[in-house]
């Protein structure tokens, strides 16, 4: 259940209670009167489990996983079930929400696409809490002031909680009338689990006391401060009340003035009447842009139109023209540009049916659509109504000449930001560059004042956020330490990114914070973030902890360690300690094994918190230890020495959530230990684990399973021990049908069982689960099959005795036949089992084959497909068992099914056919190849990828192994079909087709195939030509180059660009494939390449260059240096080409020639241009020099030119001149 649901329920309850109290009727909630029974959710033993401590979850983390890795999920999630000691009788939250979120969620068709793109609409309630964080407490205040303010907030929170408790006690004492008792009882239980959720409301105080009836909703901040609050505030901070209490209250936005915020002073806005607005707008700027409120509402749907401000014309009409004067607006006045959402659905009661006069179309609502073209910006991709609030200034038509420099700067930034945010990619690029280049000129203030509010906009979309974050990133680099005054504001905006669902958003967030830390420096970062560490709002603390971890990774752990130590030992508040430990937890998650050098320091830092008085701190400490141990695996056990004892003894003392954390830490530390210790410590903890097997708590189950598999993986734990102590209990508690229903449990149980199996052996595990194969629950059968598959594929089937083998095959066949949905799990399972058993399968094969044949005949396509796939998997085993007869039967049946209409199934059938051909061989194939191949030729035309891939593979195999079984004419026919395949999208198909050309050419001689291919060079399609070129290369390779080259070179004489290019390309592939064989053909092709290298067409030269490259690399050290040098001479002038492809090929070719003829010779060409007066010449020469330097710097040493120095001091490498 989401927070929103909870809130709704709670509000409904509060309402019901209110009405119940007034009327005294209990009828409405009769079903809830459970006073005679023990509450299901509440602890019975109130002494032990301290019901009377108010909310025992005070300060608990109500954060969610936010799609982070599992680790973080464990650390953060805090659903209500945890901590309950009595079993839960409802469906789990996950089950309830199953259809609401995640992959299975049904699409809400009413939700528009636009809405979905918005980040805010995807966020969880927890993540939405970012909107509650304002910028108010920026660097404007001193550190001291901020700290005092935080102190104040905490005090308020404490007092509020105190009042709450008093209320609760009052109710518990039965001050209210009897009728209310049932209700009150119910409240109390719900209350227990939820108060921490309420903390998020702290900021606006709204809903904080929602459930407590006796003191209905202390909305202190909305209109005025309530009595208690003011009192506490006064006594708390007599010295700072000006800035904190009052200031803070004003600054905390109420629902009413949030919308006015972007343009500042709400108070000033309020005083204005509609008169001012209209008059000002009219007189000052006749061509005023649309008023935002109207801009949004489209024609006809606007129910608030009668509340909209009157236009000038209307006022002119209504008021007499004499006696009235239109006033100039006071200086400094600017019209409200409140975001549209405020005006749209506000106070106007909707028209609720009944009679309505047909209104004439309001002219004001027409033609005042959003501007598509902002002056000075140009055409945008889009412009949203919300953008008006931020960029409205750009359309107010003010005269730029009258504006001050500051205002002009502001507009300039605004324009650039708008271009970045809404513009087309090229616009965005230039705008981004301008902002970056002028960042220091604009100044940090002007920039961030505009960027940051944009990022807090509710309707922000991913792309916009990405772009704005990018702007911040670029600007940060430029501003460097100028950014300091804005660190906190930036953090407020960027920190939420750290808990975003989107991985890339998180990475972006980290990047920014790390850059920020580098720019601002450690000291400043600490002083800015310190006040947030014990912030009252858990959300703030959580994000701050993550941000701190990023800072640690940016500036190094050692620099932050003293600070962390101090925070973790803070005496003042447990929140600070909690956050401190959380930072330590986040560091390994972020940095992985990079924590190893500082492991000792980090562990020491949090060691004492393991015995903290706050359960919450203890839990997070254990989780932090788990994270550290996980990151440092398999090293660093010595760092954990000090905490082993407290951890193990602590595990005995804990219950519930706390225990889960401790066990998790234990589970991660045990694998680090050496044999002896791990054995001992596992024994110590096993008792608790066995006890917790029975725990109903999902979280606990998960942890226990994980710990068991980790323990089983260590060498110190013996198979004997596991068999005796663990297996029985494990199978009893976890191998139950219920576990197969939940996907996460399913996976965990399978994983753990496999880990146990790795230790205790296949037989032990299979023996225990094999009966489940005949279970009636399908998912349970599937879980069993998956486990068996994994265990057997890891360890083979040698451990399985005869009786078990029989049951296993029988069971898995049963499972196969009983499946209602064809699943790949079963297919894999079956294949693995059969392959592992090998020849032991022989007795079962007839039964298996008959099952397969039966299923091949099935009406359902997926069943047929699965059956065919199954043949593919077991073909090898059938051969091993000598069941050639059965295979013949199978392939005959498959042959008959080649008319299959479903391409997926046809593909599988062809695959099965291929696997049979592979194992039985071409000669003994049944039906004979000469029947089979003609049947395949038409299938080659099938466009489905799977079919194509399998046919081409089958045909290629036949062409490779037994081409003689089909006559040449048939092969030629296939060649023509194959040409089409060269256009396939899938690389595998193109490759297979090319190889098949090679096989066919080998079988029937290259002449005919080559003629076909050469003709194909004339086609228009580029991909086809390229593939043809490749095929020619392959044919040349398989049939020796001399069969191909003459025809190919002859083709070059065709005066057609495409053909000549194709020939060159073929030559390039050809020489690439034939490698050293090229030495015999170099002198033959040199004239052709000469011609190509001096061609006008640069593509010609480019391709020729790549031919040179492949020839040169082929003939290294084979005595063709003269030819290579000759080609180099022709190649060299091309270094002044500018087209990237051409120049790249040319440089590559020169490099290749350098390899072939030696560095010294080629460098002689290079020295000439390195210091040429013209830069245009120097640039390519230096590129050549660099290439040579990188590849063979050492070889260059003897060849460096002698530099005649005029400076006498210079002695140029005289050592080289030594002569004996």
């Amino acid at each position, binding site marked *: 259940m989401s927070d929103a649901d909870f809130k709704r329920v709670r509000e409904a309850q509060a309402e019901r209670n209110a009405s119940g109290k007034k009327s005294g009727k209990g009828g409405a909630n009769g079903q809830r009167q459970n006073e005679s029974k023990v509450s299901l959710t509440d602890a019975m033993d109130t002494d032990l489990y301290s019901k009377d401590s108010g909310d025992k979850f005070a300060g608990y983390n109500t954060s969610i996983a936010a799609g982070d890795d599992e680790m973080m999920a464990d650390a953060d999630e805090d659903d209500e079930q945890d901590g309950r000691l009595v079993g839960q009788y409802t469906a789990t939250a996950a089950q309830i929400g199953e259809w609401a979120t995640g992959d299975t969620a049904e699409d809400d068709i009413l939700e528009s696409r636009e809405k979905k793109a918005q980040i805010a609409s995807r966020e969880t309630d927890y993540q939405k809490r970012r909107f509650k964080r304002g910028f108010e407490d920026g660097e404007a205040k001193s550190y001291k002031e901020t700290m005092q303010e935080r102190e104040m907030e905490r005090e308020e929170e404490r007092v509020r909680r105190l009042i709450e408790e008093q209320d609760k006690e009052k109710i518990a004492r039965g001050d209210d009338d009897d009728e209310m008792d049932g209700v009150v009882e119910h409240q109390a239980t719900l209350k227990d689990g939820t108060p921490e959720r309420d903390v998020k409301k702290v900021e606006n105080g709204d809903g904080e006391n929602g459930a407590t009836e006796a003191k209905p909703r202390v909305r202190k901040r909305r209109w005025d401060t309530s009595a208690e609050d003011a009192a506490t505030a006064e006594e708390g901070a007599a010295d700072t009340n000006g800035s904190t209490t009052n200031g803070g209250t004003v600054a905390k936005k109420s629902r009413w003035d949030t919308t006015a915020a972007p343009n500042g002073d709400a108070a000033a806005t309020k005083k204005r009447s509609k008169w001012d607005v209209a008059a000002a707008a009219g007189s000052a700027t006749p061509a005023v842009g649309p008023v935002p409120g109207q801009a949004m509402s489209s024609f006809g749907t606007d129910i608030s139109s009668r509340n909209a401000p009157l236009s000038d014309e209307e006022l002119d009409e209504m008021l007499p023209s004499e006696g009235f004067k239109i006033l100039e607006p006071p200086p400094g006045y600017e019209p409200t540009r409140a975001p549209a959402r405020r005006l749209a659905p506000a106070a106007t009661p909707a028209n609720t049916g009944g009679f309505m006069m047909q209104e004439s179309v309001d002219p004001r609502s027409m033609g005042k659509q959003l501007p598509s073209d902002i002056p000075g910006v140009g055409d945008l991709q889009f412009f949203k109504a919300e953008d008006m609030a931020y960029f409205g200034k750009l359309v107010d038509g003010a005269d730029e000449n009258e504006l001050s420099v500051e205002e002009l700067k502001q507009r300039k930034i605004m324009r650039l930001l708008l271009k970045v945010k809404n513009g087309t990619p090229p616009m965005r690029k230039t705008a981004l560059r301008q902002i970056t280049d002028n960042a220091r000129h604009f100044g940090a203030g002007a920039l961030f004042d505009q960027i940051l509010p944009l990022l807090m906009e509710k309707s922000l979309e991913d792309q916009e956020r990405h772009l704005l974050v990018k702007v911040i990133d670029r600007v940060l680099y430029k501003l460097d330490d100028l950014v300091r005054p804005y660190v906190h504001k930036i953090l407020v905006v960027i920190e939420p990114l750290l808990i975003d669902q989107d991985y890339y958003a998180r990475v972006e967030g980290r990047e920014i914070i790390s850059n920020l830390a580098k720019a601002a420096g450690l000291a400043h970062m600490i002083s800015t973030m310190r006040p947030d560490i014990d912030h009252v709002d858990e959300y703030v603390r959580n994000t701050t902890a993550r941000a701190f971890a990023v800072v640690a990774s940016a500036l190094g752990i050692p620099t932050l360690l003293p600070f962390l130590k101090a925070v973790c030992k803070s005496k003042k508040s447990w929140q600070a300690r909690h956050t401190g430990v959380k930072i330590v937890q986040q560091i390994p998650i972020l940095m992985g094994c990079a924590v190893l050098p500082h492991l000792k320091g980090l562990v020491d830092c949090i060691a004492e918190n393991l015995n903290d008085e706050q359960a919450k701190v203890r839990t997070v400490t254990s989780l932090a230890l788990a994270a550290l141990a996980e990151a440092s695996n398999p090293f660093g056990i010595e760092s954990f020495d000090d905490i082993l004892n407290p951890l193990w003894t602590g595990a005995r003392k804990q219950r519930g959530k706390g225990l889960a954390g401790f066990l998790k830490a234990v589970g991660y530390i045990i694998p680090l230990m050496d044999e002896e210790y791990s054995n001992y410590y596992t024994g110590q903890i096993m008792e608790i684990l066995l006890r917790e097997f029975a725990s109903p708590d999902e979280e606990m189950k998960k942890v226990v399973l994980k710990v068991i598999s980790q323990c089983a993986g260590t060498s110190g734990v013996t198979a004997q021990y596991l068999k005796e102590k663990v297996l029985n209990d494990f199978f009893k508690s976890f191998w139950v049908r219920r576990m197969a229903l939940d996907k996460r449990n399913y996976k965990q149980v399978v994983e753990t069982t496999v880990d146990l199996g790795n230790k205790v052996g296949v037989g032990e595990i299979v023996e225990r689960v094999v009966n489940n194969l005949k279970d009636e629950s399908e998912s349970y059968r599937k879980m069993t099959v998956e486990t068996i598959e994994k265990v057997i594929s890891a360890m083979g089937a040698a451990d399985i005795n005869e009786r078990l083998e029989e049951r296993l095959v029988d069971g898995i066949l049963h499972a196969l036949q009983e499946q209602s949905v064809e699943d790949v799990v079963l297919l894999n399972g079956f294949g693995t089992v059969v392959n592992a058993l090998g020849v032991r399968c022989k007795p079962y094969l007839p039964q298996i084959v008959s099952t397969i044949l039966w299923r091949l005949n099935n009406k359902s396509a997926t069943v047929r497909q699965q059956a065919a796939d199954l043949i593919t998997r077991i073909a090898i085993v059938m051969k091993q068992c000598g069941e050639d007869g059965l295979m013949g039967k199978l392939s005959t049946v498959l042959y008959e099914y080649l008319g299959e209409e479903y391409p997926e199934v046809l593909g599988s059938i062809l695959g099965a056919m291929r696997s049979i051909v592979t194992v039985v061989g071409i000669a003994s194939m049944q039906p004979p190849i000469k029947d089979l191949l003609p049947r395949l030729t038409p299938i080659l035309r099938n466009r489905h990828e799977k079919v194509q891939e399998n046919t081409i593979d089958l045909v290629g195999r036949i062409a490779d192994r037994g081409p003689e079984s089909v006559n040449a004419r048939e092969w030629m026919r296939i060649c023509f079909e194959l040409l089409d395949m060269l256009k396939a999208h899938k690389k595998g198909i193109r490759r297979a087709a090319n190889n098949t050309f090679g096989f066919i050419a080998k079988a029937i001689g290259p002449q005919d195939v080559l003629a076909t291919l050469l003709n194909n060079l004339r086609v228009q399609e580029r991909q086809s030509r390229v593939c043809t070129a490749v095929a020619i290369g392959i044919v040349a390779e398989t049939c020796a180059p001399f069969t191909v080259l003459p025809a190919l070179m002859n083709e070059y004489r065709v005066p057609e660009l495409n053909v000549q290019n194709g020939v060159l390309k073929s030559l390039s592939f050809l020489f690439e494939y034939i490698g050293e064989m090229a030495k015999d053909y170099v002198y033959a092709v040199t004239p052709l390449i000469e011609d190509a290298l001096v061609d006008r067409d640069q593509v010609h030269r480019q391709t020729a260059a790549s031919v040179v490259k492949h020839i040169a690399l082929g003939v290294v050290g084979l005595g063709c240096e003269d030819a290579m040098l000759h080609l180099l001479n022709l190649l060299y002038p091309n270094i002044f080409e500018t087209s*990237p492809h051409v120049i790249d090929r040319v440089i590559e070719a020169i490099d290749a020639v350098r390899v072939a003829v030696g560095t010294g010779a080629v460098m002689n060409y290079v020295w000439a241009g*390195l*210091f040429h007066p013209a*830069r245009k010449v*120097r*640039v390519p020469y*230096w590129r050549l*020099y*660099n290439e040579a*330097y*990188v590849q063979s*710097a*050492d070889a*260059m*040493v003897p060849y*460096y030119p002698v*530099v005649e*120095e005029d*400076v006498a*001091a*210079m002695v*140029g*490498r005289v*050592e*080289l001149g*030594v*002569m*004996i």
Partner: protein
Amino acid sequence: MADKLRTQQQLEALQNKYIGTGHADTTKHEWTSNIARDSYASFQGHPPLLHYMSIGMGQGVERTRVHCMESMVLPCGPAPATEEG
């Protein structure tokens, strides 16, 4: 434009990795220094060559090696004080 930027970045990356690489604005002094350093490093890296040189110069191998090492410090003297361009 973007291409130019990319080449620029590639060149910078290259230069970070291989100090001896140059670009169109490399001065004669930089280049000759690099050449000299590379040469001395190379001499030391080929013991037979070092041996040969030692015999030729009539001193111990180690002495030659130290000489090569020391010559790598400012092989072409300090950089010219004035920049022409």
